[in-house]
């Protein structure tokens, strides 16, 4: 497999793709081998149904891992799931994993959590490998130099039965983030700004590789946040070349290479860099030096502005459809053109989701909340991404700081990012949210979502409106 690395200069993506081609078909599609398949309750049941109906087995139970996260409650989990339909869905996952002998992490297990938080935590997310999940935010795992992308339920069935996928080779796109990001600027601000620049379809048909000083400077958590929202820019996968931070994160994780293989694996991982002279189909550059904290104002992640900016005026947009789209967004969001972003008031705050629920995110929120109280009329919740994140945060006393400031401290799950459980916005409620999608109705019908970083969300909870975190922390 290593010989494919030696010919023409290749991008990081090319290297991983080429080393996973089982077959190239005449029609231009390839059969790609999948090294790890993460599954959850919402998108896997048809796959198992198919296997049952056709008398097939799961090809590699050792390369499959299941966990419930989407439709579970984030309060009183020990008492079980009240919603009978959601309960039935999770019970179906339990039965399917038992029948097909797939490793399953139960709801009350310390390792349970959002599938894209627990993958890296368990060490199944590895550089140079391929990973899929029936969830679009699988892009998250690209932070480790792992080619990871979201698939639909039919493809979940395909991977269960064959451990492969039929795919057309995507194109290469490079996003360079030059300069050093200032204090208070996070992976979330960088990716929101990228999406604002390329648009929600800017990466369609591509795999994006992120390079540059700001990317190197990010922690693994920050890189996961960045790669996570790659799908919001239209690309199914984002990639960051692995480095010492990556290796350090993976060391001693459950599924990570053991001491017999560690050095060999690390040597291989170090080769996972784009060769000099390798070609990209598209290159986008951005300077992080003057980047301000970002806040979305509309109903698409591309509707984003710096916290120092204003709500835009649709009348200045030439294209008809775009103008209508922005007008409609402003109407839904109940915002007027020219309104300063830092004067937008909020009544709900959600800190969580596969984008921002890791330990660094909780620490950032707690740092802001330390010794403060949330504003009158604001309700705020923090939902750790996994049992392990929750335990670590509690060990550091972060839960106490947050609770004393008036935040609710919940149990792990997707929660109000997708609002499949009781965690949701009422019509008209406005929320500072660390999640990934501000689509109409995403967090509850009629709810208004503003996407921000964890520190920005925590500061909004305390002030009752958006504030520039750089001023707040000064």
């Amino acid at each position, binding site marked *: *497999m*290593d010989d494919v690395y030696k010919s023409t200069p290749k991008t990081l993506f090319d290297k991983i793709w080429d080393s996973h081609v*089982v*077959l190239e*078909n005449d*029609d231009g599609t390839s*059969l790609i*081998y999948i090294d790890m398949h993460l599954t959850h309750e*919402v*998108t896997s*049941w*048809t796959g198992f149904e*198919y296997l049952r109906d056709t008398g*097939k087995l799961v090809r590699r*139970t*050792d*390369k499959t891992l299941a966990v419930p996260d989407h439709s579970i409650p984030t309060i009183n989990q020990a008492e079980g799931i009240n*919603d009978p339909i*959601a309960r039935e*869905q999770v019970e*179906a996952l339990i039965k399917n994993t038992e029948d097909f002998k797939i490793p399953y992490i139960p709801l009350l297990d310390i390792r349970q959590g959002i599938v894209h938080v627990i993958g890296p935590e368990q060490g*199944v997310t*590895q550089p140079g490998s391929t990973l899929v999940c*029936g*969830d*679009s935010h699988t892009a998250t795992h690209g932070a480790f130099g792992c080619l990871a992308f979201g*698939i*639909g339920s*039919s*493809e979940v*069935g395909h991977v269960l*039965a*064959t451990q492969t996928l*039929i795919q*057309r080779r*995507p194109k290469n796109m490079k996003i360079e983030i030059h300069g050093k990001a200032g204090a208070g600027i996070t992976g979330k601000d960088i990716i929101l700004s990228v999406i604002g620049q390329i648009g*929600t*379809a800017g990466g*369609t*048909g591509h795999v994006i590789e992120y390079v540059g000083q700001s990317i190197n400077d990010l922690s693994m958590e920050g890189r996961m946040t960045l790669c996570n929202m790659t*799908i919001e820019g*239209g*690309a199914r996968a984002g990639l960051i070349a692995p480095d010492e931070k990556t290796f350090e994160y993976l060391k001693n994780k459950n599924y990570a*290479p*053991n001491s*017999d*293989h560690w050095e*060999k694996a690390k040597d*291989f991982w170090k080769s996972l860099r784009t060769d000099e002279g390798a070609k990209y189909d598209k290159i986008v550059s951005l300077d992080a030096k003057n980047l301000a904290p970002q806040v979305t104002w509309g109903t*698409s992640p591309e509707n984003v502005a710096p916290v120092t900016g204003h709500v835009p005026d649709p009348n200045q947009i030439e294209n008809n*459809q*775009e103008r209508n*789209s922005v007008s*409609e967004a402003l109407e839904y969001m109940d915002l007027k053109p020219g309104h300063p972003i830092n004067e937008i008031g909020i009544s709900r705050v959600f800190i969580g989701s596969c984008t921002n629920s890791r330990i660094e995110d909780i620490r950032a929120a707690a740092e802001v909340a330390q010794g403060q109280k949330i504003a009158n009329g604001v309700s705020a919740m923090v939902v750790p991404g996994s049992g392990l994140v929750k335990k670590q945060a509690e060990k550091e006393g972060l839960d106490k700081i947050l609770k004393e400031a008036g935040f609710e401290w919940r149990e792990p799950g997707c929660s109000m990012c*997708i609002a*499949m459980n009781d965690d949701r916005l009422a019509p008209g409620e406005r929320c500072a949210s660390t999640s990934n999608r501000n*689509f109409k*109705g*995403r967090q509850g*019908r009629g709810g208004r979502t503003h996407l921000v970083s964890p520190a920005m969300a925590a500061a909004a909870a305390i002030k009752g409106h958006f504030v520039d975190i750089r001023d707040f922390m000064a």
Partner: protein
Amino acid sequence: MKKFTQLKGTAAAIDKINIDTDQIIPKQYLTAITKAGLGKGLFHDFRYDMNDDELPDFVLNQDPWKNAKILVSGENFGCGSSREHAPWSLNDFGIRCVIAPSFADIFFNNCSKNGILLIALSEKDVNVLMNDAKHPATCSMIVDLLDQTVTRSNSSTIQFTIDASLKYRLLNGLDDIELTLLQSDHIKVFEEKQKLSHPWLYYGESN
């Protein structure tokens, strides 16, 4: 998978860009473990008010579009969540073809596994069909996959392109999994080779 050959029917216009899969089918329809009845949830927040009564202004609540089989919409249709409930709800409603300038990648793949034909056309051609779809007198169209044409009510045709393998699979209603299982020997060879070069990826066996 249901075959797709020719489709004759009413086309409905949803003249918006970036229709995401949360708009196509919202979260409350994702908890059930059945595809039955998802058509009722299609475009839920456009179709129903807070009391779940139909909103008369929305195109799929009006005649003749209540029975639409084709949808015409703006660019980046199907962006966002990977939920296959989106194509399932289109199918359950009776819509088997969407025409737009561009589609999101995961949605595109999901439709291709569910016998739904997605046709990407230039903005100019989409606008022509969008205008046709907005009027009862012109909203009937014929989509022919074999000829790769959309025939308008005035009998003029618009040609579209489609990936040859996808066309073949749609025309014949082929199941990818069965096809891939014919390649099991190749998959096994790949695994044997990878197990030697990257033993740490064989978690259960080598670690």
